[in-house]
């Protein structure tokens, strides 16, 4: 275990545990207003402000060149067939770009392409080794399970912020709890979320290269979201708190008439505080890949440079060697070699007469 790994792994772990302790003991010390009202409001403020600020920051830099990564046959001769995958992986039109982005954002298309390469002993080859490449979908599966489970969990939580509870939220709960296991019914998304998070954490630790490159900024969000999920699950299944009071608190927050009802367990404040930290942390972290992917110039541009010139707003004239520079240097030799020139060698004076 290198010191580098220790620092980047244990500091965020300690940080998340510390945040949890802060909220737990804070709530017990009757700081409910701090953790139940001030922190959520502040974090939402930071979230929106930071989120917008970051996007504006990105948008202020232009995209000087149109550089899509092309992963399918380009649009060229009319009889060369471009199948749907070609159009989606090498878009030529705006509509195809929309398709490519939709696949990327909703289905993690590029991760789906993931392969794994391994060096294996292969005595049949003179060099004795063979690289084997195969399709490797686990990372895709882990990522998609995590993101969709998290999204559904967030949507389910709208139950606390709507009165009467919106219909789609109720339907979502029914679907999510269809296995009818345990009381209260276990939500599959909760299980999937924790399982996916554990996988994502596991791979960072188990793969020596990933462990080598992972930073605190990679472990911190994992620990944080894991903390949120585990406290949430605990609150729902094991140490239940007064759910009516929680709803009262939540409705108070969204209606801008914050109240702190009595009877909410400190564990709930831990849960809520971690969520607040996540929101506040979001815009300043790698989690900004959420809006960022939409702006990625290798994905969101059509490969149509040869049909439409892309304008670089800071394009500037450059010094280049002109044809005349070349001819002036090599005129005699060029004439001797029979290469046409612009200015013939100075003719003898007599000829002009």
């Amino acid at each position, binding site marked *: 275990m290198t010191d*580098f790994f220790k620092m980047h792994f244990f500091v965020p772990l300690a940080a998340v545990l510390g945040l949890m302790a802060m909220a737990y003991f804070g709530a017990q010390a009757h700081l409910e207003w701090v953790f139940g009202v001030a922190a959520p409001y502040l974090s939402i403020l930071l979230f929106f402000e930071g989120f917008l600020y970051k996007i504006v920051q990105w*948008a202020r830099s232009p995209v000087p060149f149109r550089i899509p990564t092309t992963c399918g046959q380009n649009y060229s001769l009319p009889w060369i067939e471009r199948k749907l995958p070609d159009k989606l992986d090498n878009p030529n039109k705006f509509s195809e770009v929309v398709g490519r982005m939709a696949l*990327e954002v909703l289905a993690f298309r590029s991760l789906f392409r993931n*392969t794994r390469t391994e060096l294996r002993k292969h005595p049949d080859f003179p060099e004795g080794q063979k690289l084997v490449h195969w399709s490797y979908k686990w990372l895709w599966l882990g990522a998609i399970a995590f993101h969709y489970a998290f999204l559904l969990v967030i949507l389910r939580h709208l139950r606390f912020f709507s009165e009467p509870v919106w219909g789609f939220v109720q339907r979502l709960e029914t679907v999510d709890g269809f296995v009818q296991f345990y009381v209260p019914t276990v939500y599959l998304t909760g299980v999937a979320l924790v399982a996916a998070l554990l996988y994502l954490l596991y791979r960072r630790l188990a793969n020596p290269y990933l462990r*080598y490159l992972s930073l605190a900024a990679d472990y911190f969000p994992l620990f944080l979201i894991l903390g949120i999920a585990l406290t949430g699950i605990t609150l729902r299944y094991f140490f239940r708190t007064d759910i009516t009071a929680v709803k009262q608190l939540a409705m108070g927050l969204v209606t801008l008439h914050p109240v702190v009802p009595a009877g909410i367990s400190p564990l709930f404040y831990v849960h809520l505080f971690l969520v607040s930290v996540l929101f506040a942390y979001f815009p300043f972290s790698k989690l900004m890949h959420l809006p*960022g*992917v939409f702006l990625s110039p290798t994905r969101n541009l059509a490969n149509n440079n040869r049909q439409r010139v892309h304008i670089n707003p800071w394009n500037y004239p450059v010094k280049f060697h002109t044809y005349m520079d070349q001819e002036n240097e090599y005129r005699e030799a060029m004439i001797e070699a029979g290469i046409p020139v612009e200015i013939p060698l100075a003719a003898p004076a007599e000829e002009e007469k």
Partner: protein
Amino acid sequence: MAKVPKPQELAKVNYQPPAKGWMDVKPEFRPGTFVNAAQPKWLEMVNYPYPRAWAVTDEDWKLPENWKEIILQGMEDRLNRFRSLKLFFDICVRCGACADKCHFFLGTGDPKNMPVMRAELLRSVYKRYFKPAGKILGELAGARDLTEDVIKEWFSYLHQCTECRRCSVFCPYGIDMADMTILGRELLSSIGINIEWAMASVASCYTKGSHIGATPQAFKDMIDFLAEENERITGIATPVTYNRKGAEILFITPSGDYFADPGSYTMMGYLLLFKYLDLDYTMSTYAAEGGNFGYFISHEMGKRLNMKMYEEAKRLGVKWILGGECGHMWRVCNQYMGTFYGESPKFLEVPKSPITGTVFEHARAHKMVHISEFTADLIHHNKLKFDVSRNAHIKLTFHDSCNPARAMGIYEEPRYIIRNVLPEGHFFEMPPNTIREKTFCCGAGTALNSDEFMETRMKGGFPRANAVRYVHEKYGVNHLGCICALDRATLPPLMQYWVPEVDVTGITELVGNALVFPDEIERTTDLRDRPLVGFEEAEGEEEAE
């Protein structure tokens, strides 16, 4: 030159990251694994800053006094100019999907060759000087001070990236290491750190006309010689005109095609094809280079070289430009040329094939057509007569060159041509995860094809070679085809090292072999003077006589 270990040694890649954290591992410069520093004379020729004599193995790289300021200012400028850089710095989640996609990582096992780490080498400095978290938390935020060792590290690893974009295909956010490598190399160049092979080529191209530094008369000599070779082998004269005003088409191809084998055979193929069509074309001594090593130094240098193409087309009054088989040339032509120029050149017309009448609508703004598109269109319209048996000695696999594949998407045209010029059953694809958008680099693109770098080249090319090995063993493949002049320079040594049974060929060379002229002499050899199938004995007898 350092001796390259045997393939059996090199293939035993050690995939075990070092015990120390990456910030504490300093770059090592061992002969065979680094590219040489550029001599000052080349920098002076193109007015590049801080020309000086230095060597990579020197302790002191003689950086300008205010090098740190220059780098940080340069980084800030580039952050303001390239959204890609800002975004790619900010959104990487270090998921590692790119790691085992890089040929240099697969070949060296060095963790800093994982694209994610290579980016992190730059990103750590960005965090330290441009992000509050990095300024406050330092190493904990993955930030580190900019030191001379960091510069050396950048030099090492930005020159173990061939800007092939394979990582970008697999990145869930499309982070393109190629783009970051270009910008990183620009930063190095701004403090006078350039590599010899790139800078020498650029300065030669800038002042003389082509990377190989051929003068106009030498350029003509080389091509005339290949035309004579054509006549000797086929009986068909294929004369070329130079700088001819009023020609319909300006043909531009990389110097690799007329400079050395096996590119020269592709050049012979072009000349035969054009003669067959009686094409009204000319070649230029000024726009004599299709390739663009300037692009491997900076966007600006890329533009300074690229300008010649349109400028010369304008001077000669041609209608459109035809481009030869080349990889990075076509990345520049496809993704940068129009933008460099700022508009669609009005003095050119939308390309139209004088033979088939096809209007190349897809190139209507760029006004430049790829030779594979041009040839595929001819074949599709039945304008070429082939005798495929002349390629019967060839069992081919096709290497998608990185740039035409991932920065353009020209996959089908070369394959269409191949199927038409080879006998049935002579074309074999390499495994699907190693071709098309997932193709592996030759290991020596972006001006890393210098001899002093041979050991790392052979490592970087290992994934490509290993896939060739596979089809060689399985199907008896003996030729590796490509539409890239740089490939034709870098793949032969790679094959010689890993799969010596396989030769490298351009696609138009195969066209030249198969083209049947009405008045040709009986062909007993291909363009390389190798006996055709059925003529092996005749050759032998002649020699016996």
